[in-house]
């Protein structure tokens, strides 16, 4: 905290600089041609030149990401809570969830598109499916590891199962759930983009496919940069929110050793 404030912001900047340097290095060393991996400068130019285009498509993608994130997190939470609440459900429902994860989206995509059309719906659904599992999985893992003492206490307090679930197990599962939420946040943009590949007329994923087909690789990478920035912002945004939601939670303690 204290006067570290500047370095805190500087480090991610440093990361960006390192990344760009690495990128340039790869190009210089391997001589990979620019239609496969454009130079950072070319991408920078495309970012500026095509900012209107990028913004136009980015708006769609942002809506899809946020929709998918909210939907996926809610659905994941509901699943985790149901699994924790209804024990007999577990062995039946869990394999079904795994199936939902193990099916490559591209196989589902045409089906979803045909049912839901080519609007925002299926893309949000795709993002949801991707986000859903880390949330459900870590949430469930967190919920079933509540220390027995608190459950005992809850019992003597006369709580019913529902109250135990929401007031005891859920807060106790927060640190574990947070892990899943952070992961979900960084996966959300990819979910939306995959949705767009399968059928869309707008969005960064669409733009990338299009630019790729037209060999405007600089534009494609510019879209990629925007996407990556979203993912990073989302990750740190969710991280910050989680810190707010868990003010008691000291972390990074281990590194104080």
């Amino acid at each position, binding site marked *: 905290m204290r006067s570290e404030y500047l370095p805190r912001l500087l480090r991610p900047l440093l990361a960006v600089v390192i990344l760009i340097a690495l990128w340039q290095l790869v190009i210089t060393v391997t001589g990979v041609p620019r239609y496969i991996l454009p130079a950072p400068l070319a991408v920078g130019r495309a970012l500026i030149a095509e900012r209107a285009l990028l913004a136009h498509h980015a708006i769609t993608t942002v809506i899809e990401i946020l929709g998918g994130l909210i939907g996926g997190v809610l659905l994941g939470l509901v699943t985790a809570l149901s699994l924790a609440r209804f024990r007999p459900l577990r062995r039946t429902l869990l394999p079904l969830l795994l199936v939902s994860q193990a099916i490559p989206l591209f196989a589902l995509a045409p089906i979803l598109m045909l049912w839901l059309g080519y609007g925002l719906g299926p893309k949000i659904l795709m993002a949801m499916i991707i986000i859903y599992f880390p949330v459900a999985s870590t949430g469930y893992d967190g919920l079933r590891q509540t220390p*027995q003492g*608190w459950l*005992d206490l809850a*019992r*003597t307090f006369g*709580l019913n199962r529902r109250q135990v679930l929401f007031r*005891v197990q859920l807060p106790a599962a927060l640190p574990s759930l947070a892990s899943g939420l952070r992961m979900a946040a960084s996966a959300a943009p990819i979910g939306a983009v995959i949705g767009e590949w399968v059928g869309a007329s707008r969005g960064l994923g669409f733009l990338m496919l299009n630019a790729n087909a037209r060999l405007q690789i600089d534009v494609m990478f510019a879209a990629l940069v925007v996407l990556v920035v979203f993912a990073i912002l989302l990750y740190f945004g969710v991280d910050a929110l989680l810190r707010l939601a868990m003010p008691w939670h000291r972390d990074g303690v281990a590194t104080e050793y």
Partner: protein
Amino acid sequence: MTPPGLHVRNASLTFGQRALFSKLECEFPASSWTCLLGRSGSGKSSLLRMIAGLHLPDNHHLDLTTSDGEALRGRLAWMAQQDLLVPWERVLGNVMLGARWRGERSASAVARAREMLALVGLAERADAWPAALSGGQRQRVSLARTLFEDASVVLMDEPFSAVDAITRLELHELAYRLLAERTVIMVTHDPLEALRLAERILVLKGDPARLVPLAAPETPRPRALDDAEVQTRQTALVAELRETADAQ
């Protein structure tokens, strides 16, 4: 709301091959204060958990009847051997945790929680996180939480083990005052503590263990440490405990 008496029958507990106790029977009269003593590992905490209706990992059985025939659930407060503070509530929230968790929201609850906190000497720490408390402070919050419940049957597992001698004496007075007329079962390691507070003393001893009743002083409670009767009975009690040790 007169507190019920409890009648425990057929209390049995087995871990793996080892029977800790079997077919114990005992009576806890309404509005009485019973102290339960015994060697470490003799099964005191387990017995308390069983009376509280809590789960144990292995074979256990207990028949419990209340003197008024009503269920115990909802009239019981249990203070565990560990403090069991939840890290996501501040100290005040932990004191009123029962009310919070049950979803009872009222200004009077907050006031009551503050009052309890003040009684255990932690009024100023109301807004601290539990992680910022010392061991004895945590135990006092846990005590405050148990007192806050205002239950008619109170089960306490070594409630004063982590506080210093003086605070302990003060808390004795406090507990006696607030739990007068309740049916109290308290596990303790300190014979003097038992002799200060108990109307009835039970020692869990033997293998498998039996409950041996011991006479408590007849003088009014809480008894002074230099109460003559306390002093004399202490020797008897220690002897009784020691005898267990040798038997084991």
